């Protein structure tokens, strides 16, 4: 699997390393297949399952795995007593040293039951302890002691009760935010931002966020999550990130199903402050949609579309060729490539190699005659030969060998055509022709 160019052929042929070959003969894989057959032929009774062998359902899930069990237990409504799962946890006894750890115990002094801290989102400033959370009162003791920003943020992070309502002044709020940011816990930062959003005016919040890059990113992410598009656009505008704002607005069109409404929406996007390139693309998008809606309109000739959207010649030809070939309009295919020179003769030209044209025609089951015509137009004799052989265009193969003055190849090829056929006679004639200066 390496880069191989024609000049590298010698390398491949002489190297002891083999590249992927396209030949059918491939030693290792043939060997592999043989071995597979050999192994398969050994009859082994597959039925007596051994305890050592993990049982696997056809879909590959080991029986007893979670995803397998979700299906199993959901579908069966037997009482749990009747259910029996094969004993498959065959892990050999594990080193005991590890089993004593629990991830949380490594970090928590004591593992404490959950206490709802989201209660602090309530507008009432009463500190709330969700009463339904059964927990011993003793664990609430350290509750009131310290309300510094550091301690509050620490509590939030540990999932303990807290209250943000005590942070009244702007300065206190910002201290709280900065403390949250310095801990990098996105969850806590977002919680503080939600409080700030509720308790500060938009202008002030935006202004403060502008000098707090990290908090700003979290805020943007939060607004995106919550789908607060309008506020988000306002924020972008305030930040002077107009191109981002424009793209963000443009993205909204993905959610509009109705074509007419989408077109109108795109039209409203045209005036947004896109970068120069993007503006052009958005304009094109709008024009295209408009056109698709009035598809029967007179503006929609292929040539016109090509001009409006500055479609490259190559892309145009490939698209048109594919479309015409699919419809089996071989005449139209011809006219795609016909050019007239100043004397009025027609000649075929293509911005893409004719071998590619042949490829596309062949994929669309073009008749032999059409195929032959285009194979003959391939410039490179090697390429022409290989495709002519592939599609059995005998005349082209013969003519090409003749042009290459390759008598030996011609003789070899004679063996491949039907004896006494037109091709056979043609070759016979050529190899006996003394006028040709054969190279071999």
């Amino acid at each position: 699997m390496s880069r191989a160019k024609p000049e590298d052929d010698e390398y491949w042929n002489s190297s002891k390393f083999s590249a992927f070959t396209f030949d059918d003969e491939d030693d290792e894989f043939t060997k592999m297949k043989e071995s597979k057959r050999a192994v398969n032929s050994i009859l082994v009774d597959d039925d007596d399952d051994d305890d050592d062998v993990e049982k696997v359902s056809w879909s590959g899930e080991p029986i007893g795995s979670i995803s397998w069990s979700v299906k199993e237990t959901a579908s069966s409504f037997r009482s749990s007593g009747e259910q029996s799962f094969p004993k498959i946890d065959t892990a050999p006894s594990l080193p005991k040293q590890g089993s004593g750890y629990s991830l949380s115990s490594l970090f928590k002094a004591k593992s404490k039951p959950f206490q709802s801290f989201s209660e602090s989102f309530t507008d009432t400033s009463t500190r709330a302890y969700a009463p339904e959370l059964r927990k011993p009162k003793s664990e609430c003791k350290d509750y009131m002691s310290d309300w510094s920003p550091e301690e509050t943020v620490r509590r939030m992070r540990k999932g303990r009760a807290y209250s943000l309502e005590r942070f009244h002044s702007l300065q206190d709020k910002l201290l709280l935010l900065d403390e949250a940011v310095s801990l990098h816990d996105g969850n806590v930062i977002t919680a503080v931002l939600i409080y700030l959003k509720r308790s500060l005016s938009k202008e002030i919040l935006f202004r403060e966020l502008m000098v707090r890059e990290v908090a700003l990113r979290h805020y943007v992410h939060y607004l995106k999550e919550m789908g607060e598009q309008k506020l988000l656009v306002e924020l972008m505008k305030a930040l002077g990130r107009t191109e981002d704002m424009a793209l963000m607005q443009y993205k909204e069109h993905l959610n509009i199903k109705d074509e007419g409404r989408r077109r109108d929406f795109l039209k409203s996007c045209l005036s947004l402050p896109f970068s120069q390139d993007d503006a052009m693309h958005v304009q094109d998008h709008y024009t295209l949609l408009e056109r698709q809606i009035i598809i029967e309109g007179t503006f929609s000739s292929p040539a016109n579309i090509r001009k409006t959207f500055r479609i490259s010649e190559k892309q145009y030809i490939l698209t048109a060729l594919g479309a015409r070939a699919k419809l089996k309009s071989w005449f139209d295919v011809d006219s795609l490539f016909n050019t007239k020179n100043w004397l009025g003769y027609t000649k075929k030209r293509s911005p893409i190699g004719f071998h590619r044209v042949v490829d596309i025609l062949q994929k669309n089951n073009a008749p032999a005659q059409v195929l032959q015509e285009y194979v003959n137009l391939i410039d490179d004799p090697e390429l022409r030969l290989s495709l002519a052989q592939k599609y059995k265009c005998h005349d082209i193969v013969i003519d090409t060998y003749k042009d290459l003055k390759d008598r030996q190849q011609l003789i070899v090829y004679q063996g491949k055509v039907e004896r006494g056929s037109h091709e056979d006679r043609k070759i016979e004639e050529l190899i006996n022709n003394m006028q040709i200066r054969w190279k071999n």
Partner: protein
Amino acid sequence: MAAHLSYGRVNLNILREAARKELREFLDKCAGSKAIVWDEYLTGPFGLIAQYSLLKEHEVEKMFTLKAGRVPSADVKNIIFFVRPRLELMDIIAENVMSEDKLQPPREFHILFVPRRSLLCEQRLKEQGVLNSFTNIDEYILDLIPYDGDLLSMESESAFRECYLENDQTSLYHTAKGLMTLQALYGTIPQIFGKGECARHVANMMLRMKREFAGSQNQILPVFDTLLLLDRNVDLLTPLATQLTYEGLIDEIYGITNGYVKLPPEKFAQKKPGEGGKDLPTEPKKLQLNSAEELYAEIRDKNFNAVGAALSKKAKIISAAFEERHNAKTVGEIKQFVSQLPHMQAARNSLANHTSIAELIKDITTSEDFFENLTVEQEFMTGVDTDKVNTYIEDSIAQKDPLIKILRLVCMQSVCNNGLKQKVLDHYKREILQTYGYEHLLTLNNLEKVGLLKPQLTTRNNYPTIRKTLKLWMEDANEQNPNDISYVYSGYAPLSVRLTQLLARPGWRSIEEVLKMLPGPHFEERQQLPTGLHKKRQQGENRTTLVFFLGGVTYAEIAALRFLSQMEDGGTEYVIATTKLLNGTSWIKSLMDRPEAQIL
């Protein structure tokens, strides 16, 4: 089930056991019989931690998939939701809770957030008026999941996008947390190296967290000598290239998720004598892939061109082993043969499976399109014609090949040319938008923002310098008996792994110049160990390095690191950790806006 986790240099089963213990503790918090309602995405990662049997031991009697409507009836005391912290899931949970049948005896509700609880989600539950219905809301910190004896992943799909596109560093916080957990289990890692902005950020957080825990000193003898943090954007090139190792190709073609691959079933139909006309299965064949399977461990990191020979050799050994039965004469010998049968049968099945997979892959790697694509990739990587519009790309666009394939190639050209000439970039962009739809403007913009696609600002292209200094292209890559990591891409040595290799020997000081050309700072930090924990290295004992890829790693890179671990005089063994196991396709997909449309 998880014995293979303990075979490696570092026993990763300790981590798995810790996670299992945590799970048991949570389940016991909800006393009495229970049903679990699963966020379906989580069953994969959880499967690597626990089996149903563990849950059953803790009175889990039913399991359902999270769906809108009512939770199916089940005569249990507790309903536990295992979910990712996602707003849309909260809405479903709220609906579940509210449509609970009032006539039935009340069931208690609990939520276990994986990997983190989220205030945003709790707020949503509150808005929906159901927050108070939950007895327990807890989090299950599943930061680093052991995938194999030497491999840990956070399986955070969007980590790269979040870090480099949206500038959201939450996943880095989780990374630092995960590394703290790891250090708590395996000892403080004395040396930290890093390259890139995110690496710097993670190291800073780790050092800060360590200061916060200053009270309790970690008394575990360090298992890891070194931690290397690498930003994915230091090496944007590698994931774009088609992986050519066996495992890499399986992932490129079929996609490996949570250690499983789904394959077209035709080749796996088991034909037993006398069952000739049996219907062929239509469901995809699902196979688990890890080092617990001896044969797979042997071949997965090989270049695909060397897999055929390995399989054929294995086939001969197994055939010979089965032939042994003819030599077994005495009862004792026969008994011994029989005792080995299960193992031999397993080996035979394994061989049959991998032969089938290899055949499937070979059909693709021998196709003309695969070859042409690879040729273009290799031209770009060696610096051939990277400053012009590439005809193959143009043709592929015109034929409407999969968009991701196009994007991989265009991005690769851009990376190998240190940006594309404005004219070339504009041309590609226009062709892509015209062929695949204008809405992909958003995706193209995303690719530009993360630096995968960019206009050339200076005429100076430093990629050739980087390539030459780091020997990223090896003309004589040996696929069969490799002597260099470049075998994993048949010539291209992944930049990320070269950096790792050079760090171990002779050290980064030797490549200062190149490091400066790559984005982000490079740094070194030391963490003090309590006296008495300094490791006394035996003569000839290898060092152990944990390489953490921030933003994802490919299977081919993993293979290259395993190759380095196994080198006789390498001196270093590697354990690999990452935010996500990825390939070029899944990576680009994560950067697309509305990827569901027109990607295939």
